[in-house]
């Protein structure tokens, strides 16, 4: 079963790549290594600051394409993220058991209730990073710039925590989520058993490539 279509997977892959570059160069610079070229900077023969700036504009472009050319998917994403169903509380209450055994409480959404919270956090942190990043590039310096640096750094920490949590979930370290990674990788085909375990009510919504 194909849970996400090709364009959605391509969007996710593009976001992943640009986030890796931004996170890598961002934390490299944040750890006081500016002026010491990273491996990527050596490969591209470009300072890390410039790579970070260019990758940031790429993120702006990808996000812009996502909410315009991908408006249908963006609408579905927003609607399914905002939904609240009876029983969601029970899903959260049972989550610790489900994460280790795979026996989650049922839910009725395209995303499980935990994913919905994660989606909101991802969008909030990415939006904050984009807005503050554009401001940093535009201002170049001054008191407002200093404020934006603090906001940018706080959002970076938040997004890093989210990405680490996301990686823990999709890696299968938590037994209940084994197989979830297939939804966004390769052809996006997820075994039916995994679909029933993680997204039991979204079986009728699937595309077949």
């Amino acid at each position: 079963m194909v849970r996400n279509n090709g364009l959605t997977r391509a969007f996710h892959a593009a976001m992943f790549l640009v986030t890796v570059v931004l996170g890598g160069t961002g934390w490299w610079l944040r750890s006081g290594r500016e002026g010491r070229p990273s491996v990527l900077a050596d490969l591209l023969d470009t300072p890390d600051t410039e790579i970070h700036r260019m990758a940031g504009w790429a993120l702006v472009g990808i996000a812009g394409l996502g909410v315009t050319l991908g408006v249908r998917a963006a609408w579905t994403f927003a609607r399914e993220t905002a939904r609240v169903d009876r029983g969601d509380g029970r899903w959260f209450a049972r989550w610790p058991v489900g994460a280790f055994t795979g026996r989650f409480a049922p839910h009725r959404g395209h995303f499980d209730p935990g994913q919905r919270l994660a989606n909101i956090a991802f969008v909030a942190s990415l939006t904050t990073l984009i807005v503050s990043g554009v401001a940093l590039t535009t201002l170049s310096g001054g008191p407002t710039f200093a404020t934006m640096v603090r906001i940018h750094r706080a959002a970076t920490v938040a997004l890093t925590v989210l990405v680490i949590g996301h990686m823990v979930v999709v890696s299968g370290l938590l037994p209940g989520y084994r197989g979830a990674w297939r939804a966004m990788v390769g052809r996006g085909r997820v075994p039916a058993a995994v679909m029933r375990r993680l997204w039991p009510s979204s079986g009728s919504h699937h595309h077949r490539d």
Partner: protein
Amino acid sequence: MTTDTIPRPFRRRRARLGAAALASVLAVAAAACGDDDESTEAAGSDSGGSGDMTISVSEPSDGAEVGSPFDVVVDTSVDIGEPDTGLHHVHLYYDGDTDEGDYDLVYEPTFTVDRALDPGEHTIEAVIANADHSLTDARDEVTVTVGEAGAGAGGGTPGQSDDGTDDGTDDGTDDSSDDDAPTTTAADDPYDY
């Protein structure tokens, strides 16, 4: 995600949104390729003073012989500090490598260069950078000779050369950074084992 779950107005507007998306991407690309000079001016106006921004390397003097490590002292017409203060700072580039991202960051007037520079002649270019690390046009360059005997010596300007003549740059104080202060090298330093 199925098409029957998507409101019809979104489907009808897709072509127009596509054009808008392309336009926005082009706008983003244009902004990304913007002239650095604009950001320089923006930083200046926001950070206080810009058009006549200047920097000079007061130590070591051009042509001086230095040990390793050695101090570089810069005089800037604007306050400098760490980027998160919003102030400008200074990049020190060595031997003309200004495009490769290999440089030292200077947040205070005095900076100790402790990177491994081979003995011999080196150029040091000091450039005022905006807080966002874009470079301004304010820059100064000196050429120094890193002496072999100075390698491994202490900080400051231990190996700075002195030809014995008073060139008028002595500030009158008795400190080791005076141009005409006696030179101490590793060879005659009694504490150098």
